[in-house]
């Protein structure tokens, strides 16, 4: 099935053929306590402590929260506010590596997932600090705990990687297909589902073949090549494309009995059980015209961005923008002192000439954004309402259903900053709704 709307940006997946390289150990790591959606964790180490590789540095700050772990062995040199990729400064643990890279004694294989109890698996994933690694970083154990009235019947592995430039998932599928499929089986076991789908965009048919070949015979998995269209990897669009089910407006995938996980998360889940590794490393694509040697890297969570860029030959003179994630939804960085975090699927370095300026020019009502919006919204109207501070009217136009995919702004000939406007509008509307609720209570 094909979802409505969507766009065809230039894919620029030049790094797709580059095997994943291991990033050598560095001297210093910065591990922010907040690397997921939800409450940040509470630090359990202090300055001067020695930590082993994989040792917890924090404990969850609630149910929707996970711990972070030491990326290598060394000494804690600070627990303080440091630059964070999501902007501003947030509490982070700074570690000076001792070069030993010795595992913490608590890191032990958890067993074979096929023989384990679903609840134990889920707890182990939580303790490993697992979050969605496609970029949303929602704690995995929470996603795996659907309410009783919303049973999950279908597991979906998201291998769409529809963001231009990014190739980390592609490489993982090619290089670690067995781990990916074991991860799929593990998730199915946790959820108690018997049916799974694997969806990969048609420009990565080799990845789908690799997964197919690596699929354990005891799993019932349907493999599907998906239309190459952004945002194919968005959960609702992916579910529709694979199963024909439509997640209700304002709803979640579990409303149609589906649960989606990303390729990287599947590997991390498998490793968390089979090897006991907490989530301290990931594969990240470092790319763009402003980096000298684009690479797919396996790196430790907490590696300073500056080290990563230096390992890739450094930035070119004309660099103007460094983005965490892909060009459609990624977050522009204000500093090179930020670390790589669990959700950093890519580091996109753009030169001056490729920086797009979205201006607040008038909407010429061309309708391009309307055709492009995969959620069936009127981005043009939303933009105008936000511009005029008409926050409450946004409700009538379903602003909350916007997935901030950027398709609208991408094709707007007037270069209107639609996503920026809509993000602001969403926040303002939420504020008003909250006030309304408080007033009613």
């Amino acid at each position, binding site marked *: 099935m094909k979802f409505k709307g969507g766009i065809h940006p230039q894919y620029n997946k030049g790094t797709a053929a580059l095997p994943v390289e291991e990033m050598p150990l560095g001297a210093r790591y910065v591990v922010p306590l907040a690397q997921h959606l939800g409450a940040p964790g509470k630090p359990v180490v202090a300055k001067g402590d020695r930590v082993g590789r994989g040792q917890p540095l924090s404990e969850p700050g609630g149910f929707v929260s996970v711990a972070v772990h030491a990326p290598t062995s060394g000494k804690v040199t600070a627990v303080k506010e440091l630059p964070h990729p999501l902007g501003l400064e947030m509490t982070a643990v700074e570690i000076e590596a001792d070069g030993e890279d010795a595992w913490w004694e608590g890191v032990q294989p958890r067993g074979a997932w096929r023989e384990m109890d679903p609840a134990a698996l889920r707890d182990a994933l939580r303790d490993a600090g697992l979050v969605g690694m496609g970029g949303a970083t929602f704690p995995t154990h929470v996603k795996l705990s659907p309410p009783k009235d919303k049973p999950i019947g279908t597991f979906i592995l998201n291998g769409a990687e529809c963001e231009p430039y990014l190739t980390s998932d592609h490489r993982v599928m090619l290089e670690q297909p067995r781990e990916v499929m074991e991860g799929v089986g593990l998730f199915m076991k946790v959820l108690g589902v018997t049916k799974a789908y694997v969806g990969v965009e048609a420009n990565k048919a080799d990845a789908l073949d690799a997964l197919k070949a690596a699929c354990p015979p005891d799993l019932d998995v349907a493999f599907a090549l998906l239309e190459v269209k952004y945002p194919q990897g968005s959960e609702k669009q992916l579910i529709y494309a694979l199963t024909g089910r439509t997640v*209700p407006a304002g709803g979640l995938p579990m409303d149609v009995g589906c649960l989606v996980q990303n390729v990287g998360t599947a590997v991390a889940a498998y490793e968390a059980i089979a090897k006991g590794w907490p989530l301290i490393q990931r594969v990240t694509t470092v790319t763009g015209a402003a980096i000298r040697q684009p690479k797919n890297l396996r790196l430790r969570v907490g590696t300073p961005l500056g*080290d990563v860029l230096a390992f890739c030959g450094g930035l070119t003179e004309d*660099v103007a923008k460094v983005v965490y994630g892909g060009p459609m939804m990624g977050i522009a960085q204000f500093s090179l002192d930020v670390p790589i975090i669990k959700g950093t699927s890519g580091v996109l370095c753009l030169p001056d000439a490729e920086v797009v300026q979205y201006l607040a020019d008038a909407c010429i009502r061309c309708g391009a954004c309307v055709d492009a919006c995969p959620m069936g919204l009127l981005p043009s109207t939303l933009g105008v309402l936000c511009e005029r501070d008409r926050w409450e009217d946004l409700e009538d136009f379903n602003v909350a259903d916007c997935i901030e995919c950027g398709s609208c702004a991408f094709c707007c000939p007037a270069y209107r900053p639609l996503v920026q406007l809509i993000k602001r509008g969403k926040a303002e509307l939420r504020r008003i709704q909250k006030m309304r609720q408080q007033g009613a209570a």
Partner: protein
Amino acid sequence: MSMEQDKTGASPPEVAAAGGDPPAPPPAKPAPPDKAEPPRAPRLVVSTSPHVHRDQDVPRIMRSVVWALVPGILVGLWFFGLAALQVYAIAVAGCLLFEWAFRRMLGRPGTLGDWSAVVTGLLLAMNLPAGSPWWLVVVGCLAAIVLGKQIYGGLGYNPFNPALVARVVLLVSFPVQMTTWPAQGGPLTVDATTAATPLGAIREALSVGQTVPQAMAGADFPVWKLLVGMRGGCLGEVSVIALLLGGLFLLRKGHIKWQVPVGFIATVFLFTGAAWLGDPERYANPLYHTFSGGLFLGAFFMATDMVTSPVTRRGMFIFAVGCGLITVIIRLWGGYPEGVSFAILLMNAATPLIDRYTKPQVFGAKRKLYEEAKAA
């Protein structure tokens, strides 16, 4: 477990960050820029996603429209000669001038670069009789740019199609000049006798008690002449084929959506057809209606104006059908022989309303599949 065994001591990133491994004595001249260059902090642009853009902007769209108008303009020049050239030149120059002057007067940034004034100028000229005197064209430019567009705030804010605002202002203020149709004399004509337009001929005949078949026999407008453009009328409206060519180009480029021209032209065809079947003595046949007047110019280039038509496909179709209906009503029973301009302007006024009632369906608004999935 091989990877966790690599105990790399001194790692390259650390070296690079430290500023070069061989601690050389301070160099006499700046070090050559190699990978050991001192870390510098580039100034980074921080902005909201997306960080890429489709290669498309307003000036490019407007230039495409200009290209699409070229066939129609050339045919006009061929049939109406130098007089037409003068109208085109004054209209474009006038629109650019007023656009520039008005923006400047209000202290707003200049907008000549968006090419919209050129499009307005060309469309205005195409909606004027070939022999329009220079002052008429200038008044038209003033009406189009200032009354039609800039008093609302400029491109994007105007509710009505600027060229049509001008045309109607002129039609009401200078009815004689606006309905004097020079005959087609060929490329070098300067002055010429006047001629009837196909729709005007019928109306006149009806008013003196003739039937439509009689009028059509006398006026001699076979379909091929209408297609080629050998007939009286506004400068840019005569050649159906030339306009269709440009229109198809815009459709291909995606700057106009098929819903508008198809909806508009089909409605006119169907309703004039129905009238003709009912009473062929009183009503001209649908082909005659479809290929005459300003229908093709209006359907492909005026009703498709992005700013003043609905944003959704469904809205566009409703808009187009509305344009067609009003056109037919004016042509068959109204006070003017031609109604395309009025029809489009009226539907421009209805656009906000149409937009309101044609909101697209939000993804997941349909609950059916949801219930099905729950049952399954």
